[in-house]
Every structure is written in structure tokens, then in C-alpha cells.
């Protein structure tokens, strides 16, 4: 994964609440067996409108998306994160995210920034005409007009994003601890360790 320290540029002032994963990427795009090329299906129904933000010359390819409450609710499809990535989005700013979506986003090197609605309102205004900048190290979102909003992020996620670390590789390195757990569990809850071997 590519390290991510800063995301700067135009931000798509989308702002809508409760955007579910069916809107981000409709079910018909889930039939792929690769991760690539899903940007074409991103927000497909909204993009049927010729005046949509995602295809406007001003915002197409912007690295930041500003959304409303509960962004990414609905299904667990990671395709939503892959579709955003393929559009060029590396950061989403919203008042709240669905748990699964923010996990998926993080695992694909997209940072989800939670800010209060008042900050979102201000950023929506700035984004109409000017760029927005997210600095992961200092956990701040800034604008050319001296706006400065700080956000919280899980320290581990921050570390992984900054270093571009692969979570599977990190956990595989904990193989001894996992084996120890398995041994203990086999003694304590032997039937649970049996899985399909019971039949």
C-alpha cells in the first residue's frame, strides 16, 4: 500500500446524508473478480444527471470527497472503497461513517475524516471554489482561508496509513501469539476448535 501523509486538492462538495453502498457502487458492478476499473460504476445513478459533480470538469478526479452523516451505510462491499479509489478519491470527510465502510476505506489507503457538521458546512462552502488540505500527521484539515479543523483517528490506523503497512503481513508476524491462543482454546473449548471436522 502507498504511504499516505497528506491529501490536498479540490474536494467534491457532495454533502448528502445516508449515502448507502448501493449508491456508491450498484450491485451489478459486484460481479467483477478484480479490484480495478470500478470508478466507472461509482455513483452511477447520480451520474445519469448530466450536471453531476463527479463528472464536472471542476471536480472530476478530485482526491477528497465531502459527504453527509452515515456515509457508506448498507452492505459490506469493499467495492465501494475500490470504486472511490478508482475515481481518485484518497480521503472522505463526513460527520459520521458506517463502521464497515471506514474499515474498508482504511484497508485500501483511503482516510475517513470525521468532523462535526459545522465544519462540514464550512468546508462545503470553501470546496465550491478552493482546495482543501488534509494532513494526517497533525490530524488537521485546513483551507487557504486559515480554517483549521482537527480530527481524531485510531493511532494504529494512522501509523499504517503513514507507513503504507499491509495489515495481513503485520498479523502474520504475530503467528506465535495466534498459535498460543489456539492451543489454549483447544483445551478450554475443544468443540469450538473442531469446525467442519465434527461431521
Amino acid at each position, binding site marked *: 500500500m502507498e504511504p499516505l501523509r497528506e491529501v490536498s486538492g479540490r474536494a467534491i462538495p457532495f454533502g448528502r446524508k445516508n449515502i448507502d453502498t*448501493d449508491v456508491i457502487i450498484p450491485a451489478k458492478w459486484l*460481479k467483477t473478480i478484480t479490484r480495478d476499473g470500478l470508478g466507472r460504476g461509482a455513483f452511477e445513478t447520480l451520474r445519469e444527471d448530466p450536471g453531476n459533480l463527479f463528472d464536472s470538469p471542476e471536480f472530476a478526479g478530485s482526491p477528497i470527497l465531502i459527504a453527509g452523516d452515515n456515509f457508506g451505510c448498507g452492505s459490506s*462491499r*469493499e467495492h465501494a472503497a475500490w470504486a472511490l479509489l478508482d475515481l481518485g478519491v484518497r480521503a472522505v470527510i463526513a460527520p459520521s461513517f458506517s463502521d464497515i465502510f471506514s474499515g474498508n476505506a482504511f484497508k485500501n489507503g483511503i482516510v475517513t475524516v470525521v468532523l462535526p457538521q459545522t465544519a462540514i458546512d464550512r468546508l462545503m462552502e470553501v470546496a465550491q471554489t478552493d482546495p482543501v488540505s488534509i494532513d494526517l500527521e497533525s490530524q488537521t484539515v485546513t483551507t487557504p482561508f486559515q480554517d483549521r479543523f482537527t480530527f481524531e483517528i485510531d493511532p494504529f490506523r494512522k501509523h499504517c496509513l503513514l507507513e503504507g503497512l499491509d495489515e495481513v503481513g503485520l498479523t502474520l508476524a504475530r*503467528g506465535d501469539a495466534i498459535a498460543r491462543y489456539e492451543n489454549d482454546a483447544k483445551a478450554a473449548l475443544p*468443540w469450538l476448535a473442531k469446525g467442519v471436522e465434527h461431521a
Partner: protein
Amino acid sequence: MASRPRTLYEKIWDAHVVERRDANDSRGTCLIYIDRHLVHEVTSPQAFEALRAAGRTVRRPDLTLAVPDHNLPTTARRDSAGARIPIADPESAQQLAALERNAPEFGIRYIGDADAQQGIVHVVGPEQGFSLPGATIVCGDSHTACHGGLGALAFGIGTSEVEHVLATQTLLLAPAKTMEVRVEGSLGPGVTAKDLVLHICGVLRASGGTGYVIEYTGSAIRDLSVEGRLTVSNMAIEHGARAGLIAPDDTTFAYVKGRPYAPRGADWDAAITWWRSLTTDPGARYDKVVTIDAADIVPSVTWGTSPEDVVPITGTVPAPENFADPSKQDAARKSLEYMGLVPGEPMTGIAIQNVFIGSCTNSRIEDLRAAAAVLNGRRKSANVKWAIVVPGSGLVKAQAEAEGLDRVFIDAGFEWREPGCSACLGMNPDKVPPGERCASTSNRNFVGRQGPGSRTHLVSPATAAASAVAGRLADVRELDRQ
């Protein structure tokens, strides 16, 4: 030494901590062991591909079960000579072929499209005794919350997490907050587990559960069968909750006993002892408590494009301006436009053209029995063009046929199909045509969910059956009186 009182969620969590990432932070992220992993064809190909690319193996193939469900056609899959009938959609065929290839390559038990046990993963897991109380269960599918009805900590994960679990049998997770949703009292006649959870969707709204694991408690929950509990927990994700939980009890144990992968003999006795300890201790604190009176719940139906858009079947289409939240007013206007509804219209006046009985929410034997009981001796209305029943698994289908339910459905004008996800999300050919309405027992009424332009009304199996007969959304309690 008496230990601190804990919630059910905390007990399952504590039993699965491999290690804390930061030993000094008792509320921080943990490496959590996963006991059961269900895999289907839609969210797994990229995970297997990544394992292959990195030269990694599956740590515990014996704790993993693969079942195709989303893309499978619900029409016959083999011809009379037993040869596979090709799948028309090349992309569906490609995803199914990928799972059929990946499962054996990585040593994973695979229940195939023509096996008697095949079905929707969330129906197959409990039915096979693969999903067990107290276990941590994951699947690349948000409705994994379903298995919480057994008292398992079960939740949906993304494809990168599927890969993580395949490679390590663990996940890095931060503990969730806990919420108790307590439903006391008894459900009235014609009111089912689905109506109960739709009612909760209305109370909690689509994001009221975000960040929480919800434990459903109270006498109305305890009185439910395991099938009903699976229905309730299934929709925990529709309030944004990470998972749903219902404490296992004798009803649960009776359901699990004797299933193919369930513990037996001495293992069974040991399991029961542990399962009995899996209740929330007196004095344990939830982060939030919501109480609901079962007497307030009537057959429920959705009018909009979010599961929170619930009204009693006796109610009317709401007026957007009556919502307090301005953004909800706006969303309601959009929903009503999409749904082609006018405020003030009685719900029972809304004509439907399609009926879908199926999905991991409502495709178990009890659901089919409830629908068949309503349809027995009746026929679907002429304006219902398409009515299908899609059993949740081959075993449900066989059981229903043994009970003669298939005849009841067919005589009522329904099509009797092969198991799978079907019109729940329309990845296979089963779709609701644009602009048409469907009374559906599934769990999501999102825009386009059952096919582009489809209009979904979420209901219980009994309500779906009554609506098929009436040709409009119907109050099953009225039909009973006729």
C-alpha cells in the same frame, strides 16, 4: 474472586482476545480470534487472488465453509441428465467458477450449487450447526449479523478482512459500545419477528446503532423461535449496528442439537456448560438502553427507500414536512418520488405487482409455513404478475415439500424456486421490473435494490402472502377475519 459483571458481548469478546495491541489499553484494539468463516462468491475472489499473489495459505480451512448464493439462478441448475445448465450471465458464471476453483485449491469445504445443503450462507451456517452460540463468526456480507440470533458474535466484513481471516484466522478489532434493546410483552396475533425488527428499525433509525453491538432482550425476544431470532438479528445492520446478539437459552440449544457440524457427546456437554454462562450478568452496564413495548407493535411495512421508513400497515404514507429533521424531509421527498407515493395514502390502498418471499431474513421453514398458512385455499390477485418463493436452502426446500407447502404456493399462483439470494438484490436474473412495486420479505428497500427502478415494500412473510391475495399491501389480521 467475584469478577466484574459483564455483558454477553463482553464475555464473548474476552474469550476471543488473542492479544491486545497495546497491553495497557483495556479499551483499545485487539487481535480477535475468529471461530467460523463463511465465504460466498461475491466478496471472496479478490481475497483469494491476493493470497495467491503473496504466496499465502489459509490458516484454518477447517473453520471455513464456502457456499455460492448471490449469483445462482433459482431455476433448475442441472438438466434431466444431471449436466450443468450454463449460466447466461458471463460475469455471474465467472464469479461462481472462481469460488468453485478457489475453495478446493485452498482446502476449504465447499457446498456446491447442486448440493442438497446449498443455500444462502446465513441460512446454511445455523442449519448445518456450523454457526454456534458464543462463537465469533464472520462473512464478507453485512447480514452476517443474522447468526447473532444464536448468541454468536457475528458480523460482516470487507474483502480485505476476508483475506485477513483466511490468512490469520483473526481480525484486528476495536471493541464496540453496547446497547440493549429490550422488548417486553407479547406480540399480538399476526405480528411476527419481522414486524418486531421493522418496528425497531423505525425507532432506532438507520444510524441509531452505529458503533454499537445490540443485545435484544426481554420477554418478546425470549418467546421467539430461533428462526424468529435470526430474523431480528439479521436486520441489526439496518440500524447501523456492528452486530446483533440474543442470549442463547434452551430454545437455542434444542435448535443446535444434532446438526451436522454441532458438537456431540462429551463435546456437547462441555459446550452446553459454557453456553449457559453466556448471559449478561445482573449489574452489567450497557452504554445505551432502549425499551419497547411489544403491545405497540403491529404488522409493519416500509413506505420509503430506507429500512427506517416504517409505518404500521394500518397507517398512511407520511408527509415529508412532518419530519422534524430538515434533511430527513428532503430525503422523504426524494423517497416518495422514487416510490411513486402521495402523502396521506393509506398503506393498504397501495397496489402491488410483485411478491418476493425469500432472503436470509425470511426464507427459513417457519417463514414458509407462515406464508403458506395465509395462502392455503387462496389465490394471488390477478394484478400480481410475479410471485415467487425462494427457500433459504435446499434443506428448507425439501422440508417444505415434505410438508406439502410447495403445493400451497403453486396452487396460490406462486413460482417455487431453487435456493439463493434471488430478488433480494437481483444479482441473478430475478428482478422486479422498473416502476413496479414488490411486497418483499427481504431486508433492504434501497433505491434499485431489487433491480433498477424497483419499488420495495419490506414486510413479513404473512403480510407478503396476504398482500399477494389482496393485490395491494394488506393487513394479514383482516384477511384472517374473512
